[in-house]
């Protein structure tokens, strides 16, 4: 086919999706950028140009920094816990001979559940005189204020995220383990390396790419942490201890006031943070190749 004609045909195939995304995503994004320079509040009925005022306000807003810190804490704690548990479970899966398929099918379940359902399951578990209360009571242990006290609620939510996403880590890392070539480990065994040495110096380096991608995806997903917060704690119980950045944006923009100008500014700021983080991870990922 002549080159000109090929280009036109390829464009015709690409065009529908491209036009759709431009109309439904890019134009609205640009309008958000425009609104972020305005005092635009639907409930108060204001709409006027205020320059950089929204951006100045967000830089001095303790809630923005507080919720970013909490999101970072989630990233750190959940990321490392999910990675550690996921890797150990993947190693265990790799070690066993029977029932592997059934165990994997069960581990798949929390990933398939809509996260609103995960939120309700754990709301139920944490609820006063709910299952966890019953279990602690049965064992004669002191009760724990799962979601009714401030720092504890944060740990509970982290636990929910770990419960929901450790299986993802496990399955990704297990797939990585399965795809490892067997020869390097065998060679190392012949050379008299211990099991630990084989893990440390042969298999982990081979797994590094898979591990980094899995951690990258999880870390980026923590920025979206909203559903379980909105069902279980709604940012509370006190002093916004579980208010992630996603929940903060929702709160300012839609739940408390419709202050969309300011919310747009915060959203653009978050977008910059997310892409800076993504670039950073991407560089680390490329650096190891």
């Amino acid at each position, binding site marked *: 086919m002549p080159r000109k004609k090929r280009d036109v045909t390829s464009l015709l195939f690409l065009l529908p999706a491209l036009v759709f995304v431009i109309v439904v995503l890019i134009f609205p994004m640009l309008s958000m950028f425009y609104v972020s320079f305005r005092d635009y509040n639907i409930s108060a009925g204001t709409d006027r140009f205020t320059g950089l005022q929204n951006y100045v306000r967000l830089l001095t807003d303790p809630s923005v920094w507080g919720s970013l810190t909490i999101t970072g804490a989630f990233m750190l704690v959940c990321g490392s816990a999910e990675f550690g548990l996921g890797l150990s479970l993947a190693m265990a899966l790799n070690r066993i001979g029977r029932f592997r398929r059934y165990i994997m099918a069960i581990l798949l379940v929390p990933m398939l559940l809509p996260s609103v359902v995960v939120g*309700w399951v754990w709301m139920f578990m944490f609820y006063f005189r709910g299952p966890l209360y019953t279990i602690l009571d049965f064992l004669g242990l002191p009760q724990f204020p799962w979601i009714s006290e401030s720092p504890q609620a944060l740990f509970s939510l982290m636990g929910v995220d770990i419960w929901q996403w450790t299986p993802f880590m496990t399955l990704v890392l297990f797939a990585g383990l399965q795809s490892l070539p067997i020869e390097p480990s065998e060679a190392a065994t012949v050379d008299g390396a211990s099991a630990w040495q084989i893990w440390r110096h042969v298999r982990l380096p081979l797994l590094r790419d898979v591990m980094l991608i899995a951690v990258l995806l999880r870390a980026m997903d923590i920025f979206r942490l909203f559903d379980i917060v909105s069902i279980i704690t709604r940012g509370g119980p006190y002093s916004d201890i579980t208010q992630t950045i996603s929940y903060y944006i929702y709160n300012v923009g839609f739940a408390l006031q419709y202050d969309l100008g300011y919310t747009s500014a915060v959203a653009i700021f978050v977008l910059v943070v997310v892409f800076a983080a993504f670039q950073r991870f991407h560089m680390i990922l490329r650096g190891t190749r």
Partner: protein
Amino acid sequence: MKRDEALAYFYLGLAVVIVIVPLTWFFEMSLESKWFTGPFGFTGGSIVYFKEAFPEWNGKTLQNYYFVLTDRALPILNTLVVSCASTVAALFLSMLAAYALARFKIRGSENVAYWLLSLRLTPSVVIVIPMFLFMRNIGLIDSPFALVLVYTMSLIPFDVWLLRGFFQEIPVELEEAAWIDGCSRWRSFVTIFVPLTGGGLIAASIFNMIFCWGEYLFALILTRTNAITIPVALYLFRSPTMMPWGPIAAMAMVATVPLFILVLAVHKYFVRGITLGAVRG
């Protein structure tokens, strides 16, 4: 059995128990006839609705399911319509785009893939604000059509990404033979290429359905009363004083079970497809 293998079984068994216990305990609630919890925990009395229609059997009853399937039929219907429409629309658009990316040498097509991936990584709470402004301007707040538009848009990056991988594995020779015989690009796409892509399309449509069925944030913000979906209906059960756990658990089942059926059904399809291919050699 060696000692470390036994240890591995024990560890995995523990994980399986931790996954299963909360789920079974919660879904057991959907069969309970005592559904309310007051401020003092699980002490509420029995519910009176549907008591006659569904007699208890060892304290278990289906009245909660009857309640959500009748009283909350609208969100279930909305979810069904929105999920199917978005899945079909997104598949159609992505299929064309993925074909172009897989078959034509387009300048910067690697960058397109990168951009699609970063779109996928953008937090949805950032996208929901422009979506709200957009839908408000064109008067689509609380309309299922708004959700279809937004879901289709959200699915396209992922579908293109996934389908491109599948499409690249399909040998180009089959189509080339058709072109030599005078077949147009479009015709060879429809009659030769698409029938070969069954596995990829089914995998993509399953992921699409899973996404749409459980999507929460967009639905929460873009709908009010008429277009609410199952996740929003679940959210609306939340109350500071009384938690109707029975209907909540039943609705959560409605939000979950179709996905599992779908995955199981397709699992069979996959296995059959693979064995068929093997037999034909």
